[in-house]
């Protein structure tokens, strides 16, 4: 079955095929997949697609999702208006 067109990360519109291609060209960790495809780096910061990406990675690399490092969140963990970061309104 070819499910390459299935969208995995909706924020950045990354498909399963994009993720597989990245893994096959050497992005074999969660962090690398994120970086090379932008999956999980959009507005929701991977809250929806993280698990799916780990599954694809596990399938492609023959590891269990548990063996794969889950990657890190970078602050802010929720979207924050720039106006607030300026520190003028509190």
């Amino acid at each position, binding site marked *: 079955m070819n499910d390459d067109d299935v969208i995995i990360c909706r*924020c*950045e519109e990354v498909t399963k095929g994009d993720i597989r291609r990245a893994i096959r*060209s*050497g*992005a*074999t*960790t969660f*962090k*690398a997949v994120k*970086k*090379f495809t*932008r999956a999980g*780096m*959009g*507005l929701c*910061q991977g809250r929806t697609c993280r698990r799916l990406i780990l599954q694809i990675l596990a399938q492609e690399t023959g590891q269990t999702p548990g063996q794969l490092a889950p990657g890190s969140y*970078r*602050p*802010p963990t929720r*979207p*924050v*208006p*720039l*106006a607030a*970061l*300026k*520190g003028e309104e509190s």
Partner: protein
Amino acid sequence: MKGPDVVVVGGGVIGTAVTYYLAKQGADVLLLERAELGGETSSACDGFVILQSKSPGVHLALALASAELYRGLADELDWDIEYRNCGGLIVIEREEELPAMRTFMAKQQAIGLDVRLLLGDEVRRLEPALAPHIVGATYSPQDSQVNPLQVVLGFAQAARRLGARVRQGVPLQTLRRAGARVSAVVAGGEEIPAGAVVLCTGVFTPELLTPLGVELPLRPRRGQLVVTEPAPPLVHHIFLCARYIAAKYHPELLAAAEDEALRLGVGLALEQTGSGGFLIGSTREFVGWDKRTTPLGIREIVRHATRILPALAQLNAIRTFAGLRPYTPDGLPFLGPVPGWENLYIAAGHEGDGIALAPITGRLMAELILTGRTSFPLTDFAVDRFARGKDQGGQLKVTP
């Protein structure tokens, strides 16, 4: 056992570029990356291929040659590196900055850069989102933008297609020496004979050289960045500000500054990426190996950016991160052989310009290693240019 002609150490933008151009010349190349391709500075940065920010002299000449290579690179690599010849602006906020910018610009024009000064409404016509107080901007249609990670991946792919081997998760541990030559490398516990070795290890280069008695004046200079949610097109060019130029070339002026933003070396570097999000930077700080972002750094970046482009204040920040630029005292990279060694080379220390300079670095290093000659003179980039003297053992001592 015969090993590869050349072992390239480090899989950032520089190492992958060097690997590609060596393979293109027909060399048998092995790239060793201790973690993953593009996992360090080359993925914690902007993607400016900007010429206007280069100091007028060899630095700009080198960048011009690199920009030329970027034009056809996506086709050559058969990889979408998201190259856009978008043009760039260096925004001028204060009248007092005008004279310095005029001088900077005139010197750049003399080297062949197409750059001009746009005043007041001229620049706001080009970028209506600019704040009313903006005095003007220098504009160059030659400035461009790429996706740095796609550049790394594109070089690595194309190099593989030409027969290069790329190994991730394999750190260089030891260089085996035979007289004035490296005979082999020990990496990931394995001994690999090598015809030549190039260190493309960015900020990590000094630690590899210390055991050889070579001190390299290269140190990490942190840059913090803020990423926003995707937004409809608001700006069409890449942006720096005149203060960025000051922060880059005159750290001594910044250290003494009263103003918090100045002390952190905040200069605007802003782009709206292919995905619509903004990448907004940045600071220039000497804080060792600390790659964290700080509330103060982020606040000053955001204040600075929203003063220049007020509409940004409406957007949400979704992520912040920091990267370590490989800083050298004169802002130029080290490109060349390690003195005292016949077949050990360095290509590192590109500060905030490694993405822009990667193609030309790769090409010149390949020329140097394979033919001993280069199409662009590398004297200003010599590894021992800060050297005060050499000690008895033929080992190099370099002090800043």
